[in-house]
């Protein structure tokens, strides 16, 4: 979990930074997209690095989901009879957010790929420049798309707020004083990520980026 989570977190950080390039204009963003695809050429073919990244990412997602499903199934088996009344005593959102949030995020990713990667459900269509897909996608008329993104991103933030410190804990790096720092760090990191991801769609919708 921790390792696959970390891979995904790494990707997300880069992805967010990349997305922010939209603020430097369409060209900058397209260049970045292009750069991604031509990285390390000619040593690797077109989309070489990106494909490797994608494979890695895909594996991470699959393994992560597999681990999540295994854990959930073990948990179910460990408690075959449910409580009639059950009240959480910890800051208690974690279980539900992690499981149902995770599934929601997965669904979102599928849709997101169809939308912005393949352009299947995107008004700009399949054969368009990435920046166009993005800007077309978040026009005010398609406010509900933006809404889906906002919700998804907030879910991602919540998932990571717990996920990041949890990963540290799983690896045994959190002790005593450090626990507070790691938790704060996870919160800060998630907040930055959420804001960073939210900025482009909102900016487009409200016409700041055209």
């Amino acid at each position, binding site marked *: 979990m921790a390792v696959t989570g970390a891979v995904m977190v790494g990707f997300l950080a880069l992805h967010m930074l990349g997305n922010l390039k939209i603020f430097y204009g369409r060209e900058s963003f397209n260049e970045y997209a292009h750069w991604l695809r031509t990285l390390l050429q000619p040593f690797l073919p077109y989309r070489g690095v990106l494909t490797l990244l994608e494979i890695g990412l895909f594996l991470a997602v699959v393994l992560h989901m597999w681990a999540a499903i295994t854990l959930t199934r073990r948990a179910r088996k*460990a408690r075959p009879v449910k409580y*009639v009344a059950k009240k959480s*005593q910890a800051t208690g959102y974690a279980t539900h957010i992690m499981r149902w949030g995770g599934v929601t995020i997965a669904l979102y990713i599928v849709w997101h790929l169809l939308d912005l990667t393949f352009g299947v459900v995107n008004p700009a269509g399949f054969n368009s420049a990435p920046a166009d897909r993005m800007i077309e996608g978040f026009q005010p008329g398609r406010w509900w798309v933006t809404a889906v993104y906002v919700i998804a991103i907030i879910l991602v933030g919540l998932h990571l707020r717990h996920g990041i410190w949890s990963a540290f804990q799983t690896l*045994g790096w959190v002790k005593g004083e450090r626990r507070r720092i790691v938790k704060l760090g996870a919160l800060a990191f998630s907040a930055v990520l959420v804001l960073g991801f939210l900025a482009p769609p909102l900016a487009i919708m409200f016409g700041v980026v055209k």
Partner: protein
Amino acid sequence: MDLTLKVWRQSGPDDAGRMVTYLAKDVSPDMSFLEMLDVVNEKLILEGDDPIAFDHDCREGICGMCGMVINGVAHGEQRATTTCQLHMRHFEDGAEITIEPWRAAPFPVIKDLVVDRSAFDRIIQAGGFVSVPAGSAPDAHAVPVRKEDADDAFDAATCIGCGACVAACPNGSASLFTAAKITHLSLLPQGQPERLIRAKAMVDQMDAEGFGGCTNTGECTAVCPKGIPLDTIAQMNTDYLKASR
């Protein structure tokens, strides 16, 4: 004060079990929770009914025998308190209280609120000890121990094996219990020689017993009557990862 109790009744391991409602009248706020149940039981016995079976012994919060889920919280809502140390003054007159046993597959219900926690003993058997035959020990002062380490080890060692952590964990994990013992012995020089095999063996036994995995939700430490911290789980993970390499 008068209370309505909704209590899990299950006549034996094979019975499906159900919630049954009882009225507890004239409860004194100075009673402990178990004394309140004693009074209910006295009445049930005289009426020829089966009294509610529950585990208890020391009634002072140290033996770890008592334990029930009260209004959805293991050992009840008062923090750092075992069921036997919980007092009725924390409940409102007229309140409705649900009482259930620890629920986890590795803790099968024996009767009513009594569950079988022998899985904990088997986790200890797997490695929760230092191998030292009686009479073979060196002088107690032969190995000094840093005071801080001794204190931290003590904190972990105060676990009373009640099982509330398992009862509260959404995954039914026994991580806090197992980690408390691993941490206690890991922090002391006496525990070093067997440190890694101990961690590996105990965690493997915990999994074999059918407890769930830990996803760090922290419910366990919140209900733990001894406040065993999550640090112990981090320590267990460190030792386990090292041992698995």
